[in-house]
């Protein structure tokens, strides 16, 4: 579906990605992990064709993403990034309608809102919601778009435990139904629980990709995050020692 061929990515002078090679396949959840500033969000933007690669090719369904029109990309990719601007006063319903495109049926809109538990907020002003509620509206907007590839930038940010759980279960269900899901995550346990594949960025251009089970080890992640991690429950639980 989406393939990176020798892709390099720069932000200013810094090289975030050097000759990266990987593919995103339908039916899989891919987690992107790395320290702050390593380029996780930039990588997502490059996948969405919103940040040009400084070398190599980003191929979306075998065509270079920069040769596709924005409409063509938008038909395939749904991107969730930072919370959108709210100073001009949109309601939740209007924000969802903007994501849905013209002539979207009302039941589908209500269904997406209900899945993220924002159905009761439809007529509220976006600017008057809490960050968590706004994040749920953004996720409902992604669901509404029904694109085969989802790119999610910290979708669990601002969410309470209940909604994080709701969301992560949903990501698994969507992947099981054939969707390709790429998500930036900070929580190692969550990544281990939902990811089939991982992309690890070290912030110096280095990229490691592969099966989640193989890459999410205490030793490798300790090195990546520069924090000593201890392994519990046969490697299913990785924790730093907070008390030293």
């Amino acid at each position, binding site marked *: 579906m989406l393939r990176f061929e020798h892709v390099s990515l720069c932000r200013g002078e810094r090289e975030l990605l050097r000759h990266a090679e990987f593919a995103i396949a339908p039916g899989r959840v891919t987690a992107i992990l790395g320290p702050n500033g390593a380029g996780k969000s930039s990588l997502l*933007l490059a996948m*969405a064709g*919103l940040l040009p690669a400084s070398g190599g090719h980003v191929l979306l369904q075998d065509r270079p993403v920069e040769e596709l*029109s*924005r*409409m063509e*990309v*938008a*038909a395939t*990719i*749904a*991107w969730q*990034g930072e919370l*959108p*601007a709210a*100073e*001009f*006063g*949109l*309601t939740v319903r*209007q*924000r969802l309608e*903007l*994501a849905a495109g*013209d002539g979207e049926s009302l039941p589908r809109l209500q269904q997406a809102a209900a899945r993220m538990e924002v159905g009761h907020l439809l007529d509220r002003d976006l600017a008057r919601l809490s960050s968590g509620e706004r994040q749920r509206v953004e996720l409902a907007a992604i669901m509404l778009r029904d694109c085969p590839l989802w790119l999610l930038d910290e979708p669990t940010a601002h969410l309470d435990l209940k909604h994080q759980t709701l969301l992560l279960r949903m990501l698994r269900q969507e992947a099981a139904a054939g969707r390709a899901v790429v998500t930036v995550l900070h929580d190692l346990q969550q990544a281990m629980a939902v990811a089939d594949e991982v992309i690890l960025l070290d912030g110096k251009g280095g990229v490691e990709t592969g099966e989640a089970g193989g890459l999410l080890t205490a030793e490798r992640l300790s090195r990546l995050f520069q924090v000593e991690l201890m392994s519990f429950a046969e490697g299913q639980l990785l924790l730093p020692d907070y008390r030293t």
Partner: protein
Amino acid sequence: MTGMQRLLASLLLLAVIVYLSLAMGDVWMQPFAKLSDTDATILWDLRLPRLLTALAVGGMLALAGAWFQVLLGNPLAEPYVLGVAGSSAAGAVLALFLVPDSAWLMSAGAFAGAWLGIVVVMFFAPLGRGSLLLAGVVLAAFWSAVIALLMALLPSRSLVLAFGWMLGDLSRSPLPLWLLWLVWGGALAAGLWLSRSLDRLLLGEKHAAALGVNVPQLRQRLLWLASAVTAVAVTAAGTIGFVGLVVPHLMRLLFGSLHRPMLIASAIGGGALLMFADALSRTVAAPAELPVGVLTAMVGVPLFLWLLVRRDG
């Protein structure tokens, strides 16, 4: 109130404003009564064209303001924010400096100045939103300095003309009425054509792009459109302030932020506000006329603050 009730109330208000604007002035006239020939001339040959000019100019300023606000992602943006009004005023004052007393040449100078300002701004168009706004603010300061320099050198007779123009004057638009209405209607049509993309731009540039909007192209179009419409409005009536800043917000409060209803309401509401302010400017100190730009602020500020407090209070 529902949307429909709000629309009907607005249309009723518009009709009242049109009626009052025709009737008001140094002499009160009943537009539908039997009038003497002199009164009929005043009403239909002087007041009506001026009213129609105000409607178009106010509408253009409000549209341009709405576009600049969404283009720059900043609620404080208005038609003059990127220095187009400043360069236009500099052009007008320069023309007065070269040939004193020529109102026609002053208008030509204003138009040329506006386009010079647009060309300069276009040079900075590829910058990000924040930098573009800053560039515009700095350019506006530069044009102010040019104006101040020229004003210091102007003879006092020309100063009066220059001040009057800068505070807005609907009495002697050098542009034919049909042209103003054509630009006004064309601007609204273009705005409606872009409305879906503009709505998405409200979410921010990245979100709009992710939803399929070609953001660089849209920015380019908006910048040209808003600047050109501002140039025409300023050439017609000088630098009337406030309408372009406040009317779009007023209409968002009344009709919501989606651009289709909001742009239609701004195009008409901006015109109505300017028309009413102009009628007041002809009336309150009659037979003297006050600068219309002063009245737009005096009418608009209380109205806007009242709506703002009602919404957030």
